[in-house]
């Protein structure tokens, strides 16, 4: 008994401190033995709908790790070949470019690429667009009339807009818009715009929060993506009934249409399952969920229409930006320099 109780105390400690790493090895070697691990930066609810439907159809289990675009993108880069991720899904393309530049994506099956028109995916075929979202200026109907709206997103940098607009600078969405601005107007102009933004804009956490603030009249307008408005309208409208969307159009940086990406990691030990998942999302199954579900993002699949409530993609007059060229690292550096992060 004495020996037993002694060894119990010792074992308890050892179990906690020493044997722990050993026990965990067994856990990590095959975290996805029965399915695939998806690093998901898309909206959790949308990807969950995708994953549930895919699992139901194929019997392949999908485990999600939710995070933000750049967080998960950088995480994959740091994990390198040891990454437990099989598939990476983002809201925007800069994080896809980040992982691709590190050489970590496997080429997608030709059949997957065939599901998406060439303008919604990079030519190299190492990842593909799975959905799209449009930049908008959301404004409070009681505070701004259509004539008072900014003609271009660049107008928001003028002193006239000081203290009158909002955005969510820490979000991947806004950072993607900045990366488009960087690609379209260059580093100096972007840095200057960000500096003005630090002066003029009120920072919120999350696009939904910006919408809520605009709706409540706490601020006149804000830069967000279109579907927050439609999503809220479809529910109670509590956060959007006083708000209206303004599309910049005219190839303005503020008319940027951001492409959500999906790719398979080269290090994935479940290539067939991972490829099947991306193909399923880009194909009819996944795109139909965009068309009929409550995500209100644009569908990008060949021959798939988007939700009829949305302004059609073709009418948005988005600027031409190569999604594979968007640079998240440079953007977060510029935003850090501007004091926004």
């Amino acid at each position, binding site marked *: 008994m*004495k020996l037993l*109780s*002694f060894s*119990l*105390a*010792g074992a*308890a*400690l050892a179990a*906690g*401190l020493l044997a*722990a*790493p050993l*026990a*965990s*090895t067994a*856990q*990590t*070697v095959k*975290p996805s033995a029965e399915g695939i*691990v998806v690093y998901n930066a898309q*909206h*959790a*609810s949308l990807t969950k709908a995708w994953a549930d439907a895919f699992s139901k159809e194929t019997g392949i289990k999908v*485990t*999600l*790790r*939710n*995070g*933000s675009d*750049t*967080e*998960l*993108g*950088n995480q994959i*880069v*740091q*994990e390198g070949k*040891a990454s*437990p991720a099989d598939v990476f899904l983002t809201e925007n393309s800069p994080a896809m470019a980040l992982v691709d530049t590190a050489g970590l994506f496997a080429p997608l099956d030709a059949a997957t690429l065939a599901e998406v028109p060439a303008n919604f995916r990079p030519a190299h075929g190492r990842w593909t667009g799975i959905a799209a979202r449009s930049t908008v200026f959301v404004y409070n109907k009681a505070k701004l009339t259509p004539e008072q709206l900014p003609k271009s997103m660049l107008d928001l940098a003028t002193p006239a807009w000081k203290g009158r607009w909002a955005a969510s600078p*820490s979000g*991947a969405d806004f*950072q993607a818009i900045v990366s488009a601005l960087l690609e379209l107007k260059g580093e100096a102009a972007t840095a200057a715009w960000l500096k003005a933004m630090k002066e003029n804009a009120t*920072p*919120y*956490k*999350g696009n*939904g*929060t910006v919408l*809520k603030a605009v709706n*409540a009249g*706490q601020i006149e307008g804000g830069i967000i993506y279109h579907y927050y408005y439609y999503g*809220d309208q479809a529910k109670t409208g509590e*956060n959007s009934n006083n708000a209206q969307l303004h599309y910049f159009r005219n190839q303005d940086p503020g008319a940027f249409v951001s492409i959500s990406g999906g790719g398979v990691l080269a290090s994935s030990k479940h290539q067939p399952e991972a490829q099947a998942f991306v193909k399923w999302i880009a194909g009819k199954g996944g795109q139909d969920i965009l068309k009929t579900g409550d995500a209100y993002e644009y569908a990008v699949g060949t021959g798939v229409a988007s939700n009829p409530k949305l302004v059609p993609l073709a009418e948005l007059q988005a600027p031409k930006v190569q999604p594979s060229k968007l640079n998240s*690292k440079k953007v*977060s550096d510029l*935003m*850090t*320099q501007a*004091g926004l*992060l």
Partner: protein
Amino acid sequence: MTALPLEAGAAVRLTPAARSGWRLSWVAGAALVVSLLALLPLGFVLWVGVQTGWDTASALIFRPRVGELLVNTALLVVLTVPLCAVLAVALAWLTERSDLPGARTWAWLLVAPLAVPAFVHSYAWMTVAPGLHGLPAGVMVSVIAYFPFLYLPVAAALRRLDPGMEDSAASLGLGPWAVFFRVVLPQLRLAVCGGSLLVGLHLLAEYGLYVMIRFDTFTTAIVDQFQSTYNGPAANMLSGVLVVCCFALLGLEAAARGKERYARVGSGAARMPFKRQLGELSGPCLLLPALLCVLALGVPLVTLARWLWAGGASVWRFDEIGPSLFQTLGLAAAGAVLTTVAAVPMAWLSIRSPGRLQRVLEACNYMVGSLPGVVVALALVTVTVRLPIYQTAITVLLAYLLMFLPRALISLRAGIAQAPVELEQAARSLGRTPAQALWAITMRLAAPSAAAGAALVGLGITNELTATLMLAPNGTRTLATSFWAYSSEIDYAAAAPYALIMVLLSLPMTWLLYQQSRRTAGR
């Protein structure tokens, strides 16, 4: 963290026999291992600082944004802590020293807000007043969420004070107010300092509360940086500055605590203090605790009820809530056991074999407990990213261990201090080895305190957000992270069931905390 309101502080006189030959035993070894582990995040911050190089580091630290954050964070602490202290002293006096109607009930109600996680407080306030933001909102919600951390120790200290000194002062001609300010208040210094430190450290570490009411502190900015770059130098430099802030608070508290003696001299028992008659003032005096209860309990409960009502049956998605609850309980139980076990050697050493080395080791444990979860998590992300324990429950548990070790340590210390060393010596003289004696005698006697410590750790884990978000294994959804995911999508109705369950889980542990604080006062 040095001042959870549970400290018993009973002194144990040590015989030379108890000291000799023990220092390098396995107990000391284990304590050393745990303490070194506890130093990991600190070492990491230093290492990253050196790695980054002075040029990059200084460019990242000495920039306007860091200045802004420093001003925000400092103002938050400077405004919130004194407000909490004044409130706590006033309320403690009312519930302990006056004939306030229903004083016992108020005493419990004033501790109950601790069962509501801080980010649920701000969720409630965002519902009631959506326009709330910035420093005033930050201070208000912080006071409401954290004042019980000061109320608990101050009330306990007030209960324990020897009224004889007040009698003497009064007999020497001091009026009631003068007695309070010159005799009572100075004796509350330790409790106020300790509680203030605890509140201050919570302010530095809190994430969810301030994100929701749009107030940037170092912690929120570090998470922003983390989400923009995973573990870029900017996030690590910010966490370096945050560590310096924590140490500044620790130093400030140590200086404010002073070295005066507060104990009674001589034997005998203090008589029960007389309750001061409030008379016609009891009406106005009732307003203070009542108002605070409305703000700290009424607002969250009414908000939860409102969202649950609005969401109807459809927000009770048990297929999601069930696994969240299960994972939370699993992590909390495993973390509580692990942390308590890891705290045993250090707690035992610090009571039975105090010395300079032990004190240094113990200080390591407390110091790391004062670091915000975001700093610990960031360190663990970088350290484990290439190790097999990366993204497993082990890493999260390790983070919990580091963050909540002081809670277990303080409880255990109190328990071990109350276990007579003579029993242990008797066991040894009957042939037990030191470890056997510790296990069979002392630990059995200290078991209630160990359980209390474990419960405190479990409570911390149940409501922990940042470290869990950053470190959890793939597929993990705890109650806190599920609540956070829904409330960030402004789906307040879907978030409500998670908040309610977190509150219900925390209630018994809060009750325990309350009971414990009364017991240490011996009444």
